[in-house]
């Protein structure tokens, strides 16, 4: 059926076959998924040209539900699989969805190197500040002092700032929002996909079942209100900053590689000229 005749959610989701989802009631991952779909819809992308690749975790289950070329890989490694696919199929839009543990604990090395390399991938990190799927252990983004199943006396590991990490490592585009700000998810995902280079969109998202219950003593609604009240689109003291934090033009890895191919094939002189003028 043509895209125009169907609501985008229905068109882009494997809605007939694969629902309900595995996610708990009140979980924020579904909101992020909705934002991603609407972002893709904004760009009018065809389903065939999009790939969604994930690692392991609650967020890692997202590719099952979207009607793209989808791949659920090993824990932490999604960006590395995506790197191979993107280089093999440069025309595809490759989205990588990861939990915070997936992206910056076990996958931290791949994350910084993907940013450094600046291959044209769109990484969407659902940051619920916990290991959801394994039942609420502290993750690299759990705040200091929070309780977790294996931090019964409070977390003493300093949390990562995912966006700061991405910026320092060289990502071309970095944005942060929350599950409360669904329209921002859609906008940032669309911009991230459009951006030529490595794009990171961090979405703070509630895990009411573990992080909410153990660390915050909050339910899903309270957590969403927390995101509303404690984040800001401007840099304000005491508030988590939302918005596009980095948007810069850096030569993209695929383009660089294609220049290498041209050089190796003996078009060295002509390409070097073009490279200098740009």
């Amino acid at each position: 059926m043509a895209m125009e005749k169907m609501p985008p959610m229905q068109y882009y989701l494997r809605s007939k076959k694969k629902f309900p989802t595995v996610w708990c009631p009140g979980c924020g991952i579904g909101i992020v998924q909705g934002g991603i779909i609407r972002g893709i819809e904004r760009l009018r992308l065809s389903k065939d040209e999009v790939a969604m690749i994930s690692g392991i975790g609650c967020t890692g289950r997202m590719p099952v539900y979207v009607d793209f070329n989808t791949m659920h890989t090993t824990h932490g490694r999604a960006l590395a699989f995506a790197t191979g696919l993107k280089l093999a199929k440069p025309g595809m839009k490759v989205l990588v969805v990861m939990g915070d543990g997936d992206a910056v604990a076990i996958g931290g090395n791949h994350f910084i190197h993907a940013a450094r390399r600046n291959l044209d991938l769109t990484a969407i990190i659902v940051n619920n500040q916990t290991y959801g799927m394994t039942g609420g252990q502290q993750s690299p983004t759990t705040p200091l002092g929070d309780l977790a199943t294996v931090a019964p006396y409070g977390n003493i590991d300093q949390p990562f700032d995912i966006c700061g990490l991405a910026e320092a490592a060289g990502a071309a585009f970095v944005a942060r929002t929350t599950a409360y700000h669904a329209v921002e998810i859609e906008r940032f995902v669309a911009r991230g996909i459009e951006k030529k280079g490595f794009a990171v969109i961090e979405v703070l998202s509630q895990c009411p079942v573990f992080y909410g219950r153990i660390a915050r003593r909050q339910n899903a609604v309270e957590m969403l209100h927390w995101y509303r009240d404690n984040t800001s689109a401007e840099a304000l003291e005491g508030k988590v900053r939302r918005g596009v934090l980095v948007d810069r033009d850096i030569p993209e890895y695929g383009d660089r590689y294609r220049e290498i191919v041209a050089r190796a094939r003996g078009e060295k002189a002509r390409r070097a000229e073009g490279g200098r003028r740009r």
Partner: protein
Amino acid sequence: MQGNEAIAEGALAAGIGFFGAYPITPANEIGEIMARELPRRGGVFIQMEDEIASLAAVVGASLGGLKAATATSGPGFSLMQENIGYAASTEIPCVVINVQRAGPSTGLPTGPAQGDVMQSRWGTHGDHPIIVLAPSSVSECYGLTVRAFNLSEKYRTPVILLADEAVGHMREAVGDLPALPVINRARAEVPAEWYFPYDNNLGDVPPLANFGEGYRYHVTGLFHDKSGFPTERQDEIEPWMERLFHKIEGNLDDIVQVEEEAVEDAETVLISYGGAARSARHAMNQAREKGVRVGLLRLLTLWPFAAAKVRSLSQQAIRFIVVEMNRGQMTLEVERVVAGRIPVDAVHRYDGQLINPHPIMKAIEEA
């Protein structure tokens, strides 16, 4: 030509389109040649941040339709294990070259060894089929690399080329490398609605569609149904598992390759492979000169194991001597298959040095 160079030539001859690298001795030459040659052919070379990533990228590229490989040695091979299992489960073709060095741990980076024989079979968790090939000469480095790609494409499976430092760094004259037949994976031809990447009713190996070409499907390391979606249903898991094993075990004639030398009248049969088989052949020739009836069974395919051949030889020979550069990993397998019918002796070395023909001669004479 050097063994590692011949491996690289084999990969190019097989039509490699993607190489994911991470440096390690004694496999580095392969990556160096790939970095030079792949761009010239429009292929992709990338050095990743570690071996976990290099194999992950290889699998991703293969799903994009490129023949893909990586090369490593002991420590890197250990890091690759989880993703080898992923490729086996998801049935994505790829070639993993392990130029073995002495281990465990960092071991002896420039010392030849064959200590990864069991790891190559069982290194990743869970029951899974695998194909492992072991070259003994420079020309075989070339031929078996082509074969590794062919088998991986034909059976949609990871294939491990288990070379060793002795063979990888050895130089031999090979003349002009022959053009060998090249197999490409079966492509999906049905309309997208009818495409099932894991359809157990399509024989042992259902066709694999490239991502991005109109066949949208799901790939996961979870147990999956014929569409690729996760399943916990026993009636879907069992036939898939059966097919996964049957595609290898049901095609042993095609996959298992051995070479027999002078076994017809042999009382003692040496069983060896890879670099160690060269010492075994040397000892065999010496023994033959002295009139001792010795033969050699050389395994080119390590896994699946050449059980039928070993069993039939055990009915004809008086004794086996397994020659290998480890503490007896294949010896165990030979003993399992021989099941006590004839004695299985062994010559092992695992200190990062080549096996001299001398201790093999001694073992032959002690018969």
